[in-house]
């Protein structure tokens, strides 16, 4: 099982993702340079967090046209798993791998804090190690994380179980104070209609070790491992 982590100019969570995959999960990981056209035979592609191309124009708008993204989109179209974390989620939306867009946080502030997520759908290749309703702790660190889509798209996401995670409070309720960016329906993570692309604003790769406050994010990597090995 081999993970490929794309490094764009301005990516800054690629090393965290590498640490999560190799040290916490115990799988193989390679860095994929944005100018490369070779996915090097990886099973899973991770689009990591950061500020690719300085967030110029819109977060993710330029990264989407990197040479490697042509291969990433082809991999996704073949059904290959892709996980976009934070800036990676923004890139996946810009590239059309996921519907909707991530806009400026409703509170205008950059938010960097631990949040709670509720597992909405445990029947995906990214969440099969969790149970529905599990509450996870992970950090968020973003200025543009407000998930937005038209009403029809939101209805489709909700109706087809494509909402993977929602922001909740300690009691597991979706209340405005637990929603760090004003995302519609408190959406923190979604999967594509085909089920092989996950976009998530919080950082599971920074929550893989109890020493750093939480290991709740490891389940996402374990889920992918279980899926690809099956």
């Amino acid at each position: 099982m081999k993970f490929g982590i794309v490094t764009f100019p301005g990516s800054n969570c690629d090393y965290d993702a590498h640490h999560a995959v190799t040290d916490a999960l115990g799988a193989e990981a390679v860095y994929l340079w944005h100018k490369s056209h070779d996915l090097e035979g990886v099973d899973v592609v991770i689009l990591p967090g950061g500020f690719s191309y300085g967030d110029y124009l819109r977060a993710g708008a330029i990264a989407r046209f990197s040479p490697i993204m042509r291969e990433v989109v082809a991999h996704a179209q073949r059904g290959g798993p892709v996980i976009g974390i934070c800036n990676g989620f923004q890139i996946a939306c810009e590239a059309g791998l996921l519907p909707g867009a991530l806009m400026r946080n409703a509170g205008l502030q950059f938010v960097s804090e631990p949040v709670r997520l509720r597992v909405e759908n445990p029947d995906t290749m990214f969440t099969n190690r969790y149970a529905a309703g599990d509450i996870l702790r992970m950090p968020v660190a973003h200025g543009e994380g407000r998930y937005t889509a038209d009403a029809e798209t939101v209805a489709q996401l909700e109706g087809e179980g494509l909402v993977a995670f929602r922001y909740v409070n300690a009691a597991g309720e979706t209340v405005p104070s637990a929603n760090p960016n004003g995302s519609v329906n408190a959406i923190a993570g979604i999967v594509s209609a085909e089920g092989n692309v996950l976009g998530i604003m919080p950082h599971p790769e920074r929550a893989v070790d109890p020493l750093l406050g939480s290991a709740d994010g490891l389940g996402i990597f374990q889920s992918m491992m279980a899926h690809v090995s099956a």
Partner: protein
Amino acid sequence: MSRFRVSVNISPRQGILDPQGKAVAEALHSLEFAEVRDVRVGRFLVLQVDAADGAAASQRVRDMCEKLLANPVVEDYQIALVEES
């Protein structure tokens, strides 16, 4: 082939929350510009484009907006000005 100066206004689509615009409106209210009803904050781009005529330049910039400059999911754009430079 002539060179055209094309400007593009990109703004958050109506109905989509624009927190920047809201913050600017509140700041204007606190400066006693009470008449301000709404503010939308967007981006303004000026492009120099070589094209056969103004219509062709504007059509090319429209394509650029659809593909890169605007995000049609959440933004509207207006090609505001085309002039030979």
